[in-house]
C-alpha cells in the first residue's frame, strides 16, 4: 500500500479538526440542558384554547425559562399540553399556568408558571397520570380580542335597536311599563288597607305602656322624695366636714410660720455660701492659693499641662502595649534531650518588641577558669602553678533581646542564652512561616566557632506553631566527659518541636498595675527628696 500524501492528509485532518471544533462549540452553545428525562419531570394541563403554543414553547417563572412544552394533543374538546419542568422547580398541585402573548404582533404564546404553595402536594411526587395543573388561565390573543370586540359591538347594536323600538312605542313597551306601575300602586294601596288594623294595635300598645309608666311614678313618689331628702342631708354633712378642715388649718398657723422661717434661714445660708464661692473665685482670679496659682501662673500651668501630656502619653503606651507569652520546646536528636524556653515578649508597637526568655538547655554551659597557685617548699624558689578548669554549669540561662521589624525582616540584638548575640527573622506567608537565625556564644572554650542556630517556625493554628532547625550549625558534633566531671556535648544537632504563643490580657493588666505602682512609688520618692 502506498504511503498517503502527507500534505493532503494534513489538509484533511485540519479541515476535520476545525469543523469538529466548530460543531462542538455550536453544540455546547445551543444545548440548553435541563430538559432531559433525568433533569426534568413532566406535568400536564388542559387548555380550551392552545393558540400560540407549540412544541418547545417556553414555560417561565419571572421571565426565566424553567420548562418547555413537550407535546400538544387534542383530548376531547380540549388541548392537552405535556410540559417538561426542570427538577429544581417544585411545581405544586395548587400551581397555576397563565398563557400569555409576549408580543402583540407575534402569534407565539408562552406560559407563565406559578409553582404553588407548600400546602399543595408536589406534582413531582405524584404518579404521572395525576400530575395535572388544574389552575390554567388563557390569555386572549389579539385576534381573539378583536373577535370578542366584534361580538360585543353586535350585541350593543342589537340593544340599541331594541331600545329604539321601545321608545318609538311600536311594541307598546312604555304603555306596559305604566300599566305595571299602576298595578304596583294598586297593590301598595291594598297592602296599606290590609295592615291598617295592625298599625292601630301597635299604637294602642304604646299608649298602654305610657300609662303603666305613669302609674309607677305615682306609686313610688314618696320613695323618690325620701331619696331627695337623703341627698340634701348628705350635702349638709359635707359642708360641715369642710368647715372642720378649715378650722384645723387655722389652728396650725404657728407651725406653718415656723416652716416659713426655716426656709428663710436656709436661703440665708445659701446666700452666705454663694458669697464664699464668690470670694474664692475672686482669689483664684487674683492668683491666690494653689488653684489661683495654677490658673494665674502661666509657667506653672504649662508645666502642669506638660505633666498631664506625659502621663497621658505614658498611659497610651501602656494601653497599646501587647504582652505575649511564649513557651517553646525543642527535641535535640543527637543530644536526646529537650531544650525548653519560657518567655515574655513586650510589644509597645507592632514593629518593635522586647524578648525576655528563660532557657533550660540540656547541654548546659561550660566555662573555663584559670587558677594560679604559688607554692614554696623549703628554701627553694616559689613555684607558680597554673591550672585551667572547665566548669560545667547546668544553671538556667536567660535571654533579653531588643527586636525591630522592617517589612518582612526582623532584626534582634541583645543577650541570647546568657551570652551576647544577635539574630534575624524572615516572615513569610502572611507571617505564618518564620525563618530565623541566631548567632551567639562567641567565646566558648570548647568550640572554634560561635553558636549558630537556624530554624523555621510554622504557625498552623492561631496560637500553636511547629519548629524545626539546626543548632550550633558551625561546629561539628562532639560529646564526651570532662575529666572527672559530667558529660558534655557540643556541635551541630538537628531539632524539632513546637510552641505556643499567645497574648495574655490578664498579664498585661498586672503589668500595667505594676508599672503604675512603680511609677507612683518613684514619683512619691522624688517628692520626698
Amino acid at each position, binding site marked *: *500500500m502506498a504511503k498517503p500524501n502527507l500534505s493532503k492528509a494534513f489538509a*484533511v485532518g485540519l*479541515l476535520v479538526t476545525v*469543523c469538529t471544533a466548530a*460543531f462542538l462549540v455550536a*453544540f455546547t*452553545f*445551543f444545548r*440548553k440542558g435541563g430538559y432531559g428525562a433525568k433533569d426534568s419531570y413532566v406535568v400536564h394541563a388542559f387548555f380550551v384554547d392552545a393558540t400560540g403554543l407549540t412544541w418547545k414553547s417556553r414555560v417561565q417563572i419571572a421571565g426565566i425559562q424553567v420548562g418547555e412544552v413537550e407535546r400538544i394533543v387534542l383530548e376531547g374538546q380540549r388541548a392537552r399540553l405535556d410540559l417538561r419542568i426542570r427538577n429544581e422547580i417544585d411545581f405544586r398541585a395548587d400551581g397555576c399556568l397563565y398563557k400569555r402573548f409576549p408580543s402583540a404582533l407575534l402569534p407565539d404564546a408562552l406560559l407563565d408558571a406559578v409553582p404553588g404553595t407548600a400546602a399543595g402536594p408536589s406534582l413531582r411526587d405524584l404518579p404521572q397520570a395525576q400530575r395535572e395543573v388544574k389552575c390554567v388561565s388563557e390569555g386572549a390573543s389579539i385576534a381573539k380580542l378583536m373577535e370578542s370586540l366584534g361580538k360585543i359591538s353586535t350585541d350593543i347594536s342589537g340593544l340599541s335597536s331594541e331600545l329604539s323600538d321601545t321608545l318609538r312605542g311600536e311594541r307598546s313597551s312604555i304603555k306596559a311599563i305604566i300599566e305595571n306601575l299602576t298595578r304596583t300602586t294598586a297593590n301598595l294601596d291594598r297592602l296599606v288597607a290590609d295592615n291598617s288594623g295592625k298599625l292601630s294595635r301597635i299604637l294602642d300598645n304604646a299608649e298602654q305602656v305610657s300609662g303603666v309608666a305613669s302609674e309607677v311614678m305615682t306609686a313610688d313618689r314618696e320613695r323618690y322624695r325620701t331619696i331627695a331628702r337623703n341627698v340634701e342631708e348628705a350635702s349638709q354633712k359635707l359642708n360641715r366636714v369642710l368647715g372642720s378642715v378649715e378650722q384645723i388649718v387655722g389652728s396650725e398657723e404657728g407651725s406653718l410660720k415656723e416652716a416659713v422661717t426655716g426656709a428663710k434661714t436656709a436661703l440665708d445660708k445659701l446666700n452666705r455660701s454663694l458669697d464664699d464661692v464668690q470670694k474664692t473665685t475672686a482669689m483664684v482670679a487674683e492668683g491666690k492659693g494653689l488653684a489661683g496659682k495654677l490658673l494665674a501662673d502661666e509657667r506653672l500651668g504649662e508645666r502642669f499641662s506638660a505633666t498631664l501630656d506625659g502621663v497621658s502619653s505614658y498611659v497610651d503606651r501602656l494601653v497599646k502595649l501587647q504582652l505575649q507569652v511564649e513557651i517553646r520546646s525543642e527535641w535535640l536528636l543527637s543530644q536526646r534531650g529537650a531544650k525548653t524556653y519560657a518567655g515574655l515578649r513586650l510589644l509597645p508597637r507592632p514593629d518593635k518588641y522586647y524578648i525576655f526568655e528563660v532557657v533550660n538547655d540540656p547541654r548546659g554551659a561550660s566555662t573555663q577558669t584559670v587558677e594560679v597557685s604559688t607554692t614554696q617548699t623549703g628554701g627553694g624558689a616559689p613555684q607558680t602553678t597554673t591550672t585551667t578548669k572547665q566548669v560545667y554549669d547546668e544553671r538556667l540561662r536567660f535571654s533579653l533581646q531588643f527586636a525591630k521589624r522592617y517589612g518582612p525582616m526582623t532584626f534582634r540584638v541583645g543577650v541570647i542564652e546568657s551570652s551576647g548575640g544577635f539574630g534575624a527573622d524572615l516572615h513569610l506567608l502572611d507571617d505564618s512561616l518564620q525563618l530565623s537565625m541566631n548567632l551567639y556564644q562567641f567565646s566558648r572554650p570548647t568550640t572554634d566557632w560561635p553558636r549558630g542556630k537556624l530554624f523555621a517556625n510554622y504557625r498552623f493554628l492561631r496560637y500553636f506553631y511547629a519548629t524545626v532547625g539546626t543548632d550550633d550549625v558551625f561546629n561539628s558534633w562532639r560529646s564526651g566527659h570532662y575529666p572527672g566531671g559530667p558529660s558534655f556535648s557540643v556541635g551541630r544537632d538537628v531539632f524539632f518541636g513546637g510552641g505556643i504563643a499567645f497574648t495574655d490580657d490578664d498579664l498585661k493588666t498586672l503589668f500595667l498595675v505594676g508599672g503604675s505602682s512603680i511609677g507612683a512609688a518613684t514619683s512619691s520618692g522624688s517628692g520626698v527628696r
Partner: protein
Amino acid sequence: MQKLLAAFDDFGQMLFFGLDTLRWAVRRPFRPNLVLQQMAAIGVGSVFIVSTTAFFSGMVLALQANYAMRQLGAEGYVGGSVAISLARELSPVLTALFVIGRSGSAIATELGTMRVTEQIDAMETMAVNPVQYLVVPRLLAAVMMFPFLTMLFNALGYLGAYLMATYVAEIPEGPLLEHTRTFVNPDDILHGLLKSLIFAAVVAIITCWRGYAATGGARGVGEGTTRAVVVSSISILLVDTAFVLLTVGSGR
C-alpha cells in the same frame, strides 16, 4: 416517449450502480489511501468556495432578515432566524450545490474520460473492479466530508451574519446571541448534518454514474458532466423537499 423510457432505464441502471457500489464498499480490499485522496479532493478542494459562499450568504441573510424584522421591531430575532435557516436548510443544501459544481463535475469528468479512453475497461481486464477502485473511494470520501463542509458553512455563515448584524445593522449583541440560542437547538444542527450525509451519497452516486456511463468520446464526457451537475442539483432539491416533508410531520 422514447426519451422517457430511456430516462427510466437510465435511472434504474443508476440505482443498480448505487447498490453495486454499496456492496463493494464493504468488501476487501479497502483502499484508505484512495479514500484519503478523494477526501482531499472533495473536502479540502471545496473549502474555499464553501467558505466564501457561507460567509457572504450569512451576511446577506442577516441584512435581509434585519430589513424584515425591523418592521416589527424585532431586530434581535435576526440572529436566531439566520442561524436556524443555516442549520436546517441552507448549509446542507448550498454546500451540496457548491460541492457539485466544484467536485461533482470533476468526478464526472474524470470517470467519463477514463471510460471513453477505455481505462475502466482495462481495469476490468486486469481483474480490478472499477466500481470498487474508482467509485467506492469517492462515495466514502463524499459521505465523510459533506458533514464537515456543512458544519464549516454553518460556522462561517453565522460569523458573516453576526458581523453584518452587529457592525452594519447595529443590532445589540446580547439579544442577537440570546435569541440565537433560544431559537436553535442542537437537534437542528444534527438535522442539517444528517441531510448532508444523504446529499453526499446522492451526489457521489449520480456524478460517478454519469461519468462511469459516459459514451461517445470527449463530447460524451462533456454531456455526462453537464447532466451530472444538473441531475445532482435537482436531486438535492428534491431530496431536501422530501426530507422536509417527512420531518415536518413529526412536529419538528
